């Protein structure tokens, strides 16, 4: 005779669950290191009070589980089984935005009930490590995406935080940023700048060798978006302080100068030295401007070219200097941002 009982999930079951889950592998039923009181198999489920009927329903819904940069992300609208999310393949920020959009359009009157569950897990052999498990209310999502336009979200916006060192992929900064974003906690801008400068330094020598600038421009679009959405606000117009704007302008001038020298056939091995200093603090940025000034004065170019570059430099030359208090800070990120954001001078 089979006896029926109600398990801890409130489901009528005839026996305690046993065996392994198929897709929800975070329930380590057979590994003493992870189980309660070292209990295994059905003893493990008995401890949790999970019956066989509930057990069948513990899984990640496959049609709502997407892979984003090698991580698995499951999205569930807890309030409705009807909500179906569409895979954007444009990174986690776009995916969250799209999910919010879908929920908002489907539940215009029952917003208070909506709860978007966001789970990120990593699969390693037969086990899953849950990295993010967050419940998002409609109010929270509304605050997070207020004023954000779909077309302004860069491709793989937050994924720029994933670092690759040799064959290893470092996820820490990426996951830290997403956790903070979902929790509505701001990350210090200086912290993000440090990460982006480090990434820049690992790439800059390759970037300077290539003629195309798409990859570089994309990097600065993504990182600016990250700084705005993680440290400030996505709707803020300028995220640069006056000091940072100074470095940005020096970067822009450097770009015009390098192109001018290349145009007049004075492309020497040392031309790009000004682009590879290990730190761009006030002293170094002043030095770059000085070298550019000397370089223009000594250039064997016709008057028209000299006049053009002089006008451009004058126009872009920053009016205010970097303040004494922040003179020793590294402004590399903004210098390179300027270099790869060439302003068209009319």
């Amino acid at each position, binding site marked *: 005779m089979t006896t029926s009982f109600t398990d801890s999930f409130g489901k009528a079951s005839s026996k305690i669950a046993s065996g392994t889950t198929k897709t*929800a592998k975070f*329930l380590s039923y057979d590994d003493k290191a992870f189980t309660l009181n070292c209990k295994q198999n059905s003893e493990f489920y008995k401890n949790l009070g999970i019956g066989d009927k509930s057990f069948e329903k513990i899984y990640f819904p496959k049609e709502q589980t997407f892979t984003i940069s090698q991580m698995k992300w499951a999205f569930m609208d807890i309030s409705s089984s009807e909500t179906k999310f569409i895979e954007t393949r444009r990174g986690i920020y776009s995916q969250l935005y799209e999910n919010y959009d879908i929920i908002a359009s489907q539940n215009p009157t029952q917003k208070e009930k909506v709860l978007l569950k966001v789970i990120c897990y990593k699969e390693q052999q037969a086990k899953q490590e849950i990295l993010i498990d967050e419940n998002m209310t409609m109010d929270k999502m509304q605050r997070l995406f207020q004023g954000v336009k779909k077309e302004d979200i860069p491709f793989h916006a937050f994924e720029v935080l994933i670092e690759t060192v040799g064959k290893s992929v470092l996820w820490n900064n990426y996951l830290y940023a997403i956790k903070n974003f979902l929790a509505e906690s701001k990350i210090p801008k200086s912290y993000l700048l440090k990460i982006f400068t480090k990434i820049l330094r690992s790439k800059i020598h390759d970037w300077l060798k290539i003629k195309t600038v798409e990859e570089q421009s994309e990097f600065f679009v993504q990182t600016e978006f990250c700084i705005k959405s993680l440290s400030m606000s996505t709707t803020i117009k300028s995220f640069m302080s006056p000091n940072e704007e100074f470095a940005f302008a020096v970067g822009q001038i450097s770009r015009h100068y390098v192109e001018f020298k290349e145009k007049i056939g004075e492309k020497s091995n040392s031309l790009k030295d000004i682009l590879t200093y290990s730190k761009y603090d006030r002293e170094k940025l002043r030095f770059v401007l000085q070298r550019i000034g000397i370089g223009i004065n000594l250039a064997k170019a016709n008057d028209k070219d000299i006049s053009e570059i002089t006008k451009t430099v004058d126009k872009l030359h920053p009016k205010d200097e970097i303040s004494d208090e922040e003179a020793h800070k590294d402004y590399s990120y903004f210098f390179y941002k300027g270099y790869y954001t060439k302003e068209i001078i009319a």
Partner: protein
Amino acid sequence: MVLLAFELYWKNKDSTTGDVKSLKPIKKIIYNKGTWNIDVKTIEEYGSDISVKFSAVQNWLSMPLSTTNPDELNLPDQRTSSAQPSPYILIYGTLKTKKSKESLLTLSIGKKPNTIEHVIDISTKQSTEKQSNQVSLKLEKNNYKINGKTIFDLYVTSGIISREGVLDKSEYLKITSKLIDYILKRNLENAPIGLQSFTIYLLPSADKISFEMEENKT
């Protein structure tokens, strides 16, 4: 951990989609009275969704998704690891569409290097074939049953494999010939650039398949 398990249970408790390891379109070819027939049941009849990702191949070959209600799909699969042998004979389909809109369909059976592979150019309708000397399939033999008989035994009876799991090539080539005819008669529309994968299940019967765990014999 328990809370997450509960939340997943709560989310899925009324869901009719199955717990599957991967989302993919599925086609069945069913053995009946000496012949293998392509399943003509429509996506709607299965009650399956059409995925944005797979809509082109789903509509092309009328394929439900692996997440279709398990009672409708009738393909129980209790495997928890990809290393476990499959209860079913599977043909792996891959549609590769280039930027030039040329589409190539590959149908393969077996594990490399022992496979039989057909590559079909959808626009020219040309098909090429590559085959190894012998294709042995690693199949589950005990726990999946139809009317009390194991699926494995039914496969052997149908003649598609030997008791040792070796594929009968001539029988398989008859099936693929029929399958390719079926494919080429249908119009592929709006195939997205890139790869689209699907799986074809060869089944020894259309009857209800049950998973009956055999107790360990001592």
